[in-house]
């Protein structure tokens, strides 16, 4: 703007004019260079304080031994000891195994349920009613994880939990008694207090909480598929299933890629559900519910080994990065729509 309006000093050309022009343009160039930085400075400051600094600090910490309660002065350089210690700790490996198990078992069903449900919602339900359904499915996602986990904690309870009560009731119904006959004997089933059942119980809560979110994503995906394509497919002789399989499903690939990426990253960081459901008690019986984040929390805040916790967090980061990279490598090009 300032460039287009004539500068009164400059237009008034006298003997000393050339020098003045130079001085003016130098100052202007500085203003020009600095202005954009000024505008993006809020982000840069926030990024440095809350992202870049903690990142580097945790990298630094991972080579120190530090009890945060004892103050900064208690920091002591230990080299790679923290990493060595973490690698030797069977709990780390156990927690990584549990994390992977939970990520798969609680992740895959979310998508296997969400995709057909979203498709039916988009294809068969009027838009107004669809929105009511979608909103309902979305409620668990915006509800506090701790609250949900507490509710499920009571549902799973061995003696008074509604789940066991229902199982007993159902097992007495005519047909169900055939294959639920064993239920009476097995009571009380300790969903959260036996090493075999903890992980499935946790997985169910996670599925219940996040399926709705995926339904929303997939609904958005199916809505982007133009009706024309289904028409063309019908004329090409597709039945309903072939339309879904050959048209709808490939068309929402970018959405699936996005949703699966979120699931992978979210599930590998799973913490609240196992923490609440195992009462914060070191991952429950036999550490069956101990996830990597949960372990990280124990090391840092229960055992006050900040250095070791930092090292573990970097191991966890590496783990997530590798899994995500593999996912990107195999699904990335098609998933990001690079083939369209």
């Amino acid at each position, binding site marked *: 703007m300032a460039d287009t309006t004539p500068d009164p000093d400059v237009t008034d050309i006298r003997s000393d004019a050339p020098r003045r022009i130079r001085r003016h343009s130098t100052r202007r160039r500085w203003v020009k260079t600095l202005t954009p930085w000024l505008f993006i400075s809020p982000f840069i400051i926030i990024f440095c304080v809350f992202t870049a600094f903690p990142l580097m600090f945790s990298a630094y910490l991972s080579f120190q031994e530090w009890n945060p309660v004892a103050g900064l002065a208690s920091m002591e350089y230990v080299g790679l000891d923290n990493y060595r210690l973490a690698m030797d700790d069977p709990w780390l490996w156990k927690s990584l195994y549990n994390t992977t198990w939970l990520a798969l078992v609680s992740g895959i069903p979310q998508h296997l349920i969400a995709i057909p449900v979203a498709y039916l919602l988009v294809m068969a339900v009027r838009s107004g009613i669809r929105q009511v359904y979608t909103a309902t499915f979305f409620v668990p996602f915006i509800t506090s994880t701790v609250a949900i986990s507490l509710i499920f904690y009571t549902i799973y309870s061995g003696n008074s939990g509604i789940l066991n009560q229902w199982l007993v009731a159902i097992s007495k119904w005519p047909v169900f008694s055939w294959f639920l006959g064993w239920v009476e004997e097995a009571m009380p089933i300790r969903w959260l207090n036996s090493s075999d059942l903890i992980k499935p119980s946790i997985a169910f809560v996670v599925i219940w909480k996040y399926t709705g979110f995926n339904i929303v994503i997939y609904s958005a995906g199916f809505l982007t598929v*133009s009706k024309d394509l289904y028409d063309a497919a*019908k004329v*090409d002789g597709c039945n309903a299933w072939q339309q879904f399989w050959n048209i709808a499903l490939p068309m929402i*690939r970018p959405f699936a890629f996005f949703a699966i990426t979120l699931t992978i990253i979210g599930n590998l960081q799973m913490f609240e559900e196992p923490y609440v459901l195992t009462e914060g008690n070191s991952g429950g019986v036999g550490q069956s519910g101990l996830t990597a984040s949960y372990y990280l929390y124990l090391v840092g805040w229960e055992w006050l080994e900040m250095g070791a916790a930092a090292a573990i967090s970097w191991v966890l980061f590496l783990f997530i990065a590798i899994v995500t990279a593999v996912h990107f490598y195999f699904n990335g090009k098609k998933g990001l729509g690079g083939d*369209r």
Partner: protein
Amino acid sequence: MARVELVNLSKSFGEVKVLHDLNLTVEEGEFVALVGPSGCGKSTLLRIIAGLEDATSGEIVMDNEIVNDLNPRERNIAMVFQSYALYPHMTVEENIGFNLRISGVSKAEKRERARAAAETLGLTDLLDRKPSQLSGGQRQRVAMGRAIVRNPDAFLFDEPLSNLDAKLRAEMRDEIKHLHHKVKTTSIYVTHDQIEAMTLADRVVILKGGVIQQIGTPTELYRNPANSFVAGFIGSPAMNFVDATLETSGGQTTATLQDGTKLVVSVDYAALGRDVKLGLRPEHLELAANSATNAMPGSVRLVEPTGAVNHLKIKVAGQNLTVVDDTLADLALDAPVHLSIAPEYIHVFPKDE
């Protein structure tokens, strides 16, 4: 191949009635063009025939069987969509071969037929591309390919060439004509381009506001338009319309233009009443001497050379008439001229039409 028959077919979208009691028979192997202004229901009609849309009332009959309740797959009709509707995630070859794949045709045969169709349409170099990597005209040809690769009972074309340049369009037109000669599949062809309609079709159907105005061979429509809409729609440049009053005396019918010029018209029109509209085709108007029959004085407003002929705008009786001048006369603007037209070429329509 099939005979397609529409019986009292109507279609409404909610309150809006889009098609009104259509009756049309397309004989086996016939090529029928469907023309009409935008929004008159052409696409809707094709979609109903294809089975993508239900008729509100009336029947669709194919080979004496009512097919209202059959789905598109069972009707075995191929359709080229106005919007192309290509599958974005499939290559050109997969797009063209999709129907064959769904029908369980063997891989080798599918490949061969898809390639043959691509060859016909000049798409051979593009077989591995995705639709997003094609130009509009190329996409349109892929959409054509998806239809011609099949062996359907009927073809429905919804403006299949609208996006091609003039040269390619002429080539494709010939290709379609050739194809139809070869396989004789019943075809219904929607177009805005009357040259396409006239050159391709055995019969032309003119639709306006969901009502059929006239059905006939191209020549019939050109020579004997049923009303002023058909007359204005068929022929290029479009027919001129001028208001006139009609009088019959002594076995001769005369039309008087607003400036008092008198034209002799065919006696058959006497029954139309006093106030009428004359339809004068630009190619039937000629520059003539003052003394010629049906001479009309006017002045030159515009000369548009098109190469072989000039299009003139001549102001007659306060109205600009388009004239096709094949003599390529050298005319100055505002020069006074006379136009004449043979009485048998003058069409007369009721004024309030």
